[in-house]
């Protein structure tokens, strides 16, 4: 069965490694923080100016001055620090952050990503996404395999305005874990109970399928 949003977040959480600083984007990526594997320690950076982001506050303890990049009220963990936006992006551009997880409207087989604009319809802006994808060594995209009309968002080339070029290495969807190498998608894992045929049918880009495709383990 295809994963829900929590399932996608749980699978991405398995990619976390001890000692990493991690930036989580808005939406599904934010949920990753709830499923840190046992025995490892990671610190979350939010680009509006906090390192050491903690869980949501208890009711009545919200502080308007303490939010994450999604504008949600948060808390600061012990050992947290606050800084300005230039310092924050120095951490990002300077590759001091080990992993970036963000959402996408489209990805293509050469690692391009589009997630900020639908011409004539929707313009929210890129926020910090362009800085993040241009600099991060390790980018995981959390997204749905298809749009509401059932069309693939895993493409040969992106049709929407790009956020970054040749930067995505791994994609986790409700159906599969895909790696991007040599200008192709490579099927690495499938969601429990999801057939390889379904993934092939819903992937528009070139997809390399090994003889055996293991199921994700939770």
């Amino acid at each position, binding site marked *: 069965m295809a994963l829900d949003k929590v399932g996608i977040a749980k699978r991405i959480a398995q990619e976390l490694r001890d000692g990493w600083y991690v930036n989580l984007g808005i939406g599904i990526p934010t949920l990753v923080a709830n499923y840190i594997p046992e025995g490892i320690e990671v610190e979350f950076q*939010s*680009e*509006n*100016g*906090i390192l050491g982001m903690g*869980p*949501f*506050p*208890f*009711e009545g*303890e*919200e*502080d*308007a*001055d*303490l*939010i*994450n*990049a*999604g*504008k*949600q*009220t*948060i808390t*600061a963990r012990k050992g947290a620090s*606050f*800084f*300005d*936006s*230039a310092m*924050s*992006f120095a951490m*990002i*551009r300077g590759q001091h952050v080990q992993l970036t997880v963000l959402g996408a409207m489209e990805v293509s087989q050469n690692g*391009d990503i589009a997630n900020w604009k639908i011409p*004539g319809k*929707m*313009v*929210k*802006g*890129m*926020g*910090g*996404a*362009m*800085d993040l994808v*241009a*600099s991060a060594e390790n980018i995981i995209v959390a997204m749905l395999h298809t749009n509401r009309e059932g069309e693939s968002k895993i493409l040969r080339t992106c049709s929407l*305005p*790009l*956020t*970054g*070029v*040749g930067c995505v290495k791994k994609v986790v969807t409700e159906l599969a874990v895909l790696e991007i190498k040599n200008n192709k998608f490579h099927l690495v894992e499938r969601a429990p109970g999801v057939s390889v045929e379904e993934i092939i049918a819903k992937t528009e880009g070139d997809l390399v399928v090994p003889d055996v495709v293991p199921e994700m383990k939770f």
Partner: protein
Amino acid sequence: MNKVVKNVEEALRGIEDGMTLMLGGFGLCGIPENSIAHLVKTEVKGLTCISNNAGVDDFGLGLLLHKKQIKKMISSYVGENAEFERQMLSGELIVDLIPQGSLAERCRAGGAGIPAFFTPAGYGTEVAEGKEMRIFNGKPHILEEALTADFAIVKAWKGDTEGNLVFKATARNFNPMMAMAGKITIAEVEELVPAGELDPNFIHTPGIFVQRIFKGEKFEKRIEQRTVRIKN
């Protein structure tokens, strides 16, 4: 040097039609809300506003947008604001969207006397159109120019009579860089204290960057996304 002005009216004196303003804040967090409310009253128009976001429909810069006082916005993220989106898509409002890190660094550069810098952010996207490209360490970068403003308006938690500022938590965001990049920088603060009361070791923005400081009359500090956990 005493930078204290009586009130918001005196602080904003000199802001005229067609000027460029920088306004600190991320979302509604750390915005100079007293100054924005007063700008709405003055009916100054044709403004170019440099601010990471454009407020929401009924708060922050959204208030200026509703009265069509803004001609151009330079921002990185403008979701959460239906009127903004409408004015932009209809062409009433000129919008320059730029990556958040580039926006922060362009303000910092403007205040630091650096006319331009190269960044990898935006290479290969529409942000790079018309900009010089160069390869450093095998990687393409684009040239981004510094930003300055006629007035920078920032919000701090505490300030002293010398204009030294301390910010709270993530309300710091763009405020320190914008304070550096204004020809005239106005700081509205929650607490205004005599010089000597703030520990010099913990000043975030030194007073040299601030020309006028005043205590804001009222801080609503609206929360955009109230998210909480339930106590077990």
